[in-house]
């Protein structure tokens, strides 16, 4: 005898008690394919097509158009085609009634769903059935237990949650003493380190981008302990490497000001024909303590007035030069992020106090990054006062369209031959690089002489 399967009306919405047959798409005796429309039914929400749960012959239809069918009551009977592909017994169609498992499939057990004689409520039988945990759809349930493993990055063993917490609390995992089994850093270890500040991130020099977050992926080396011991922070023997072994660093993308500097310098190198003259300004005649930068600025202004050819802009493409009636000096300021060259405007009309105030303002605005872009361009000549650190002579780079740059080196007491013997004089080494496309060697030398003469004056 053929295996007859009964198909019970699934819940077509969310907990709807019944649905009305609108139209059958098949008659008794018809064959139907799996998922082909069996009938249209109207619920309180919508008219939906109910797909066939089997491929086979329809042997009985429970109800005609207009009849109300309770959710869970028999809707149709089938003789499945044994040679056709059927839906797997346990596979849910996503429709079921209440918490019953597998309704709408052949796995349904009719005796579990009882429509009352009065067409009333169905016994939902929740007490003796497994709860699928959803009123719609089919929820995949699994009892597999997943365990997140501790991974070992940069010599630190920790699970993702611990790494995330360390990042949140700005704790450097490489400096946390692990207490977990197998040297694993635990949540408590990170919290303790955060509380006692023993492993704060940021003790290392700040990097530009990104911030410390995520440093666990490329941990910095721990800060050297004040007293070296034979064991590492992780309690392991300290590894030593032969001197020939070099730690190889990660390439770091230049950003911002430093990146701009690289571009500007390469551009200057490609265009300018640089020539450098060096000499020393003798400050022996100076009376009292004087502001070296202010004197330098004044001397540059004097030299610009004496030889205007170096206080100029040069256009190499059109071979034109522009001599400037005013002197705006670009002053190189070195910062961690890179080189800034703010413009000291109208240096030719400022007195000593004005120059000092202007320079102070420029330095401050560079340091706190409030300097507008308009203040970082348009100078007519520039000054690099590298001597405050070290170095006597240099070949500073002329950045187009400027024609000249002056470098001031470190002051020193030199033995100087004078008429009738030798003396020790304080001297300032001066270098000037000029673009030989725009000025002659003679002009540069005369410029340098004017600068040195003014710098040598007593006041």
């Amino acid at each position, binding site marked *: 005898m053929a295996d007859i399967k009964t198909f019970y009306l699934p819940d077509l919405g969310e907990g709807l008690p019944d649905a009305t047959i609108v139209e059958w798409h098949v008659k008794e005796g018809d064959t139907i394919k799996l998922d082909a429309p069996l009938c249209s039914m109207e619920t309180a929400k919508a008219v939906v097509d109910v797909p066939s749960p089997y491929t086979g012959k329809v042997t009985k239809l429970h109800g005609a158009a207009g009849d109300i069918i309770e959710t869970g009551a028999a809707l149709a009977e089938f003789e499945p085609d044994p040679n056709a592909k059927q839906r797997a017994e346990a596979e849910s169609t996503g429709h079921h009634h209440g918490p019953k498992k597998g309704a709408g499939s052949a796995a349904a057990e009719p005796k579990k769903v009882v429509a009352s004689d009065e067409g009333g409520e169905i016994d939902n039988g929740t007490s003796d059935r497994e709860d699928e945990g*959803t009123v719609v759809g089919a929820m995949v349930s699994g009892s597999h237990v*997943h365990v997140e493993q501790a991974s070992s990055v940069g010599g630190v063993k920790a699970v993702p*949650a611990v790494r995330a917490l360390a990042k949140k609390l700005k704790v450097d995992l490489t400096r946390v003493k692990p207490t977990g089994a197998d040297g694993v850093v635990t949540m408590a270890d990170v919290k303790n380190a955060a509380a006692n500040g023993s492993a704060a991130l940021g003790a290392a020099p700040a990097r530009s981008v990104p911030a410390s977050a995520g440093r666990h992926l490329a941990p910095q080396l721990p800060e050297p302990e004040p007293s070296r011991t034979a064991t590492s922070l992780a309690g392991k023997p300290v590894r030593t490497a032969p001197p020939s072994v070099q730690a190889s660093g990660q390439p770091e993308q230049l950003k911002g000001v430093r990146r701009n500097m690289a571009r500007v310098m390469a551009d200057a190198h490609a265009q300018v024909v640089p020539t450098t003259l060096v000499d020393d300004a003798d400050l022996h005649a100076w009376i009292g303590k004087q502001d070296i930068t202010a004197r330098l600025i004044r001397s540059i202004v004097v030299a610009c007035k004496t030889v205007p050819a170096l206080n100029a802009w040069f256009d190499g493409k059109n071979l034109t030069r522009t001599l400037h009636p005013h002197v705006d000096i670009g002053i190189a300021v070195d910062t961690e992020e890179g080189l800034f060259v703010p413009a000291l405007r109208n240096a030719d009309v400022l007195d000593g106090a004005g120059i000092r105030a202007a320079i102070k303002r420029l330095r401050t605005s560079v340091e706190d990054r409030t300097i507008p872009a308009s203040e970082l361009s348009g100078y007519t000549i520039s000054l690099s006062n590298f001597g405050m650190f070290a170095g006597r002579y240099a070949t500073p780079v002329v950045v187009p369209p400027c024609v000249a740059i002056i470098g001031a080196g470190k002051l020193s007491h030199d033995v100087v031959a004078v008429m009738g013997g030798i003396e020790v004089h304080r001297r300032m080494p001066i270098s000037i690089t000029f673009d030989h496309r725009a000025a002659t060697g003679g002009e540069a030398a005369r410029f340098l002489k004017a600068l040195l003469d003014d710098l040598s004056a007593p006041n």
Partner: protein
Amino acid sequence: MAQITLIEAVTQALAYEMAHDESVVVLGEDVGVNGGVFRATQGLQEKFGELRVLDTPLDETTIAGVTVGLAAQGMKPVAEAQFEGFIYPMMEQIACHAARMRNRTRGRITVPAVWRAPWGGGIRAPEHHSEANEHLFTNIPGLRVVMPSSPARAYGLLLAAIRDPDPVMFFEPKRIYRQYKEEVPDDGEALPLDVCFVLRDGTDVTLVSWGAQVKEALEAADALAEEGISAEVIDVATLTPLDFDTIAESVQKTGRCVIVHEAPKTAGFGAEIAARLAEECMYDLLAPVERVSGYDTHIPLFRLEMKYMPSAERVVDAAKRALAAS
């Protein structure tokens, strides 16, 4: 220690916080007597009473508005949007009031509320029951958007969300509600918000995902590993505010990024991550950023549903495209 599913972890977190903080209340449709359509609040009303587990009318606007009011006046409400697709009526209250209250009152009043919503597709649900629309909320200033990808993270992040002084959208990936279990101690330990979780360390390609799709990302990483390709897997977990640094550091290392999300591609949250990578990591990238996502259509009903969802195979293909680029 209990081995529990993601949905049980939600229940466990709610129960823990309600037991330890009397200002925490739960409200929503069918959350009380019924225990929630997915059983997230099962047993809570019996344990904490009808005043703390409120069955509301079928009215999302009211649920959201009452939640804002409760939170603004000192309670810590956890509201349930029965499905992500029912959240649209709530958005007016969330966007116009919850997200703005701190700003509007210059910090005088905050809204320490959580909106939970079963999120995403993959359970053969009817229309409106499979939405993945987290990107609608990540664009609203003043909101945190959090999506757990495992039972342990559901427990820890939900605790953190309830304790946070500002409104949190807590989207629960329902496809993996009961898919697997994890040991989750009921110790009240919150996990950090606003940071990504690096689930797998790798050197060749970065797979970035959140919610249910983290599973596909991990499966893809396993498949790639068999071919000798080392994939880093990042679970974003808190979408906004985004811990972009972790993603950037990873991409600086691998040079390649595949973003996996279920929501439609256009203007999905993957677009934000891709844009940030273009802005900040352009010179670290060795290949175009790939996005494996749903399509720009409504999620189809169950016969086509899994074709819509990002699969591990699609993620593997995208990773290989990125590897072939340079």
